[in-house]
């Protein structure tokens, strides 16, 4: 018997977010998975065709509705719940989009949610981190029960492209509330790679000392490496970097090939966010800093001297 899985696509109206391709990989780990992806948008056509190209996707549901111009949880949840009937597993990414939306869907469906799925062991058995990643728990759902989940994107490779799933225009007949309204989003747009999906990340901590030093010290190096820029919570709290750069338990959980932590001491909440990085480099003047316990390559010294040298050598 195949397991029918519904994935909620994350996108910005024009482009599919890479978190969706990671959800597809997660879903594909379920034995005999039959994967459907729902794209809710004002006009879903562009995102739906990107979704249809993902390998492993059997079907794309394009849900056009003017109310979906901004992806608000209160607006989307009843539509997803209306589509969820035939599916045994309903997944979204564990990004702020999915974290906001999926529990609302689960409550409407009267089902439990499994958050931050990091491994699928069977159609009803999952593994997820708890206590900021200090423990891993195996969670089992009742056989036959519908389950909602969010996918820890750092734990899965993105599904490849080259597929050509059929796209079905689908009305999601649901009562859409008007009590929640989008006002604005202020995004620090950069030309740099996206932090969540970049293969290289240069990240700075409190030791940078100021917003100016943060920019001057890290951005040149990041540009040389073609890297995204991240920050510790301490650096964000101190105002050196905007909140969307925060890496860690309450920020972004990332899994780049190369993570360079500069002037970051390595609080456990930060380490949670970088555990899945392939190679971690730490540059810190305190040789006792906890970041060195997880670093593959450690360099003890003054970052203000080392980083410019490093930039020159690249």
């Amino acid at each position, binding site marked *: 018997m195949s397991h029918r899985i519904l994935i909620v696509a994350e996108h*910005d109206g024009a482009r599919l977010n890479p978190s969706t391709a990671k959800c597809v990989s997660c879903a594909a780990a379920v034995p005999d998975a039959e994967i459907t992806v729902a794209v809710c948008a004002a006009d879903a056509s562009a995102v739906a065709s990107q979704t249809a190209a993902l390998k492993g996707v059997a079907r794309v549901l394009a849900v056009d509705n003017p109310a979906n111009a901004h992806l*608000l949880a*209160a607006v989307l949840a009843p539509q997803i719940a209306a589509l969820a009937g035939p599916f045994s597993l309903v997944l979204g990414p564990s990004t*702020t*989009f999915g*974290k*906001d*939306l999926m*529990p*609302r869907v*689960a*409550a409407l469906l009267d*089902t*439990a*949610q499994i*958050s931050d799925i990091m491994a699928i062991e069977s159609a009803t*058995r999952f593994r997820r*981190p*708890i*206590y*900021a990643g*200090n*423990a*891993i*728990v*195996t*969670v089992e*759902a009742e056989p036959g*029960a519908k389950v909602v989940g969010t996918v820890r994107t750092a734990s899965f490779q993105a599904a490849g492209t080259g597929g050509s799933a059929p796209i079905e225009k689908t009305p999601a007949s649901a009562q859409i509330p008007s*009590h*929640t309204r*989008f*006002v*604005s*989003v*202020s*995004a*620090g747009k950069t030309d740099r790679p996206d932090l969540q999906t970049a293969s290289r990340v240069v990240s700075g901590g409190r030791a940078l000392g100021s917003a100016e030093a943060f920019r001057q010290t890290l951005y040149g190096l990041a540009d040389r490496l073609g890297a995204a820029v991240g920050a510790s919570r301490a650096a*964000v*709290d101190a105002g050196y970097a*905007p*909140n*969307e750069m925060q890496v860690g*338990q*309450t920020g972004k959980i990332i899994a780049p*090939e190369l993570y360079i932590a500069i002037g970051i001491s390595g609080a456990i909440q930060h380490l949670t966010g970088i555990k899945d990085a392939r*190679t971690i*480099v730490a*540059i810190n003047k305190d040789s006792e800093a906890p970041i*060195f316990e*997880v670093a*593959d*390559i*450690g*360099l003890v*010294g003054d970052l203000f001297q080392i980083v410019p*040298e*490093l930039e020159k*050598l*690249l």
Partner: protein
Amino acid sequence: MRRILVCIKRVVDYNVRIRVKPDASGVVTEGVKMSVNPFDEIALEEALRIKERGAAEEVVVASIGPADCQQQLRTCLAMGADRALHVQADGVVEPLVAARTLLELVKREQPFLVILGKQAIDDDNSQTGQMLAALWERPQATFASKVELDGETSGGQPRLARVTREVDAGLETLEVDLPAVVTTDLRLNEPRYVKLPDIMKAKKKPLETLALASLGVEQKQRLKLTRFEPPPQRQKGIKVKDAAELVAALKSKGLLS
């Protein structure tokens, strides 16, 4: 009465080093310092500030759990909450059960705003607030870093909230009709410290205990937690002495060409 309901959870203090039990049955919580979930503390602080600005008249704090969580409710009363509700429940309370329970409290208390942490730092689920909003059929504004209410100055009941949220793209602002559910992110505020005289005063504040069953909520456990393990450890790395050695090490790993 213009009332705010704040929901808190008793959790292992965030400074405690978490240890998994050798028999894989759970995480060691015996003899370990317990605290109010830090995100819920931020929720209470926000409610108290709204009250101090004059936009609310009463802050009610609620918790679901064993008798011990009355300690954390007393802490909240010492911080400034006016009264506390303890819903007695032993064993696992899944987020959907918590949300159903809170919905019953919402029906009783009729708050114009419910504030709670965006997640508890023990199970890291980040579900309860959203589920409550769904069951209540009211708006949700999760991961809030700023909360503004309309009509605060007029002294009337606020009808709208404008909430800035920390999202992956940056900061998003939503306008929601009240009542609504707000979940708090780290940068919303810095909770106040509790002063000794307030701890004394808190002992006299009302704390009501209710049985979960008396609210008509079934403590259903739908997910079995079958095995707890420590996370895999990373291999111990190497130390290099300068930037040139670092570049060489990165090249040898094939990370630089």
